[in-house]
């Protein structure tokens, strides 16, 4: 039973970490919005989907037939990340402006905002399935089919580590994801904007009295969360070369789980929860078979929450000081 895991421990670990890094990037969006607004932004999975779509569009528009190399590759990757990140960040800000701020201004209950989030999520999915994929991507009547994306970089094996093949794209994804999260952590803990975010999350009313512009802070929170989801989307396209209108659904649930696992509202918890979830899924699949991987992952989630109800790190945003 454990032979399989022990026999290929490193391949399972590497794949788990890469998937976990993507979970972590998306989880940041859930955790930040929750930290500031105490709202589960269920449309965040669609913000991720928009990131994959924008990156896929970049790859399609470049229209190469062979994987890129050298400077063209660097440029292509940067463009993918830039467009993916910008599209998602823009959509997230727009989403906040249209679906959440009016409710917040009128003092609606959090439940109303939650319903608004679910509505926005379905709206965005159907918008892509019915309008954007058929027309912008020029795939009439195939709005719900998955779209293959051309290979942007060669997936040659660089070296092997304990039987695991390490590819350049995997290193890139992992390093990029961790790098973004470190930058974000610095931003929140070391800058004036970060102080505003922390203050708002701690006590919105006092923050206003101290001269923090709440609307601006909320906008920036959505912007950063969206940006991270968009970058995750671009990295996702690089890794899996596939997307569809509902791609965010399952990944969004996993990322939300990662956020809760790490301690929702906690930035470092999102990263830790993501990596933890990615590893547990892969180890669980190795031991019990891939059909069981979600069962194992969620059983672990329940167990962790039973003993640490606030998640692994268990702090909220305002207390996470460097």
């Amino acid at each position, binding site marked *: 039973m454990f032979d399989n895991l022990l026999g*290929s421990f490193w391949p*399972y670990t590497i794949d788990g970490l890469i998937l976990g890094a993507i979970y972590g990037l998306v989880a940041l969006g859930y955790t930040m919005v929750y930290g500031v607004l105490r709202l589960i932004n269920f449309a965040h999975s669609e913000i991720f989907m928009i990131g994959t779509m924008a990156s896929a569009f970049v790859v399609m528009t470049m229209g190469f037939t062979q994987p890129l190399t050298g400077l063209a590759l660097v440029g292509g990757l940067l463009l993918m990340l830039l467009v993916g990140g910008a599209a998602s960040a823009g959509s997230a800000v727009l989403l906040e402006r249209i679906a959440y701020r009016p409710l917040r201004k009128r003092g609606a209950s959090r439940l109303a905002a939650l319903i608004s989030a679910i509505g926005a999520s379905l709206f965005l999915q159907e918008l892509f399935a019915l309008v954007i994929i058929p027309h912008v991507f020029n795939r009439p009547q195939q709005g719900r089919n*998955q*779209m293959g994306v051309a290979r942007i970089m060669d997936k040659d094996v660089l070296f092997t580590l304990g039987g695991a093949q390490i590819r350049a794209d995997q290193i890139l994804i992992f390093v990029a994801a961790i790098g973004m999260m470190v930058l974000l952590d610095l931003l929140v803990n070391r800058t004036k904007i970060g102080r505003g975010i922390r203050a708002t999350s701690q006590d919105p009313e006092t923050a206003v009295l101290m001269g923090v512009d709440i609307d601006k802070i909320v906008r920036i929170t959505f912007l950063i969360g969206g940006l991270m989801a968009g970058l995750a989307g671009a990295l996702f396209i690089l890794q899996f070369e596939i997307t569809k209108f*509902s*791609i965010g659904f399952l990944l969004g649930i996993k990322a939300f789980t990662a956020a809760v696992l790490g301690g929702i509202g906690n930035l470092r918890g999102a990263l830790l929860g993501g990596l933890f979830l990615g590893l547990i*899924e892969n180890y669980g699949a190795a031991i019990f078979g*891939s059909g069981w991987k979600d069962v194992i992952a969620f059983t672990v989630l329940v167990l962790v929450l039973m003993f640490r109800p606030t998640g692994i790190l268990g702090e909220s945003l305002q207390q996470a000081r460097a």
Partner: protein
Amino acid sequence: MRPKIARLGGVLAVGVALTVGLAACGGGSEPEAGGGGSSAAPTTLKIGFMGDLSGENSGIVIPPRNGAQLAVDEYNATNPKVKIELVPYDSRADASTAVALAQQAVKTDKVVAMVGPAFSGESKQAVPVLEEAKIPNISASATNVDLAKNGWKYWHRVVPNDGVQGPAIADFIAGPAAAKNVFVIDDKSEYGLGLADAVRAQLKTKGATVTDDALDPNATDYSSTVNKVVSAKPDAVFFGGYYAGAGKLLKQLRDKGVTAKFFSGDGSLDKGIIEGAGQEQAEGALIGCPCRIPTPDETDEKVKKFAADYKAKFGADPLIYATEGYDAMTAFTKAIGAGATTPDAINEAIGKSDFDGISKHISFDPTGEPSAKSIYIYQVKAGQIGLLGDSTTAKLEG
């Protein structure tokens, strides 16, 4: 010939009367070219087509819908007494949607027959609704073995089941492909698991070593499954499931350096597998199917004509189950052309079907299974899916 009204329940009789009445109204309002004097306006009967017409697996449902439409149009063009209208029901392969649509078809739209449901999972749930309402139905693509074991009297299919497909593919894997160590993966669906189990059982009787795993077709990351395949070092991999999952799996297998021959069943027989996997990764993949897809170098005149007519009408080559959809509808048009207008009379007539269809000779045994049972093997070559041949005679190159 005489409609057996007496045998129908009161409710159904009213239903049929309403159908005829409504259809007559509908027919009357249409401009009719060859109407002819004092005789009553030609009535129109509704036949449903149910399947995933807009969802992820619509690539294997739209061709049979088009095939059925072609059969209807050809039939209506002969200016028969009773015309046929095809009513599409888009179930998106969701069983509960299919049940609701079946009820709508029976109660609101009053269809007299149905082509579909397309997939096995939805059939299991929706066919009982049709059965209860005594609406004859012929699926062009549902291949789960157990469907024929329900004692359904109004259900038929024009494709051999997975019990035929699975062993035929397994024989091919163990025979011409000479694989001794086979990794069998399923997507846990009604169809995928059934087919994979049939392949597993037959491979074991052939003395091959079989390793199992399962995956979630909605997930994207299959690395845990792929890692298992890597450590099992198989000669061949079989996947029971649909093309969306097959494409993602095949890409990730090839990217991890797995060179074993890749096999799958009819659910993967769509260009979507090449798009999902990438042309380079998909090259050489082998796909078994009880279906007969017209190929560019077709020699059978009837199939050639069908392919030309289909292309002229829909602007695309007839893909998977197009011929079967046409044949299923032809069984209905022949029954209605011969004077059957009530669901019961149509059911009786199709039970006696005996004609050469495009895909195969069409006749049904008492459980609703087709009598002809050939399985064909297709292979991906240079971004196209080509016919390799009948599974009992096809040979692998290299």
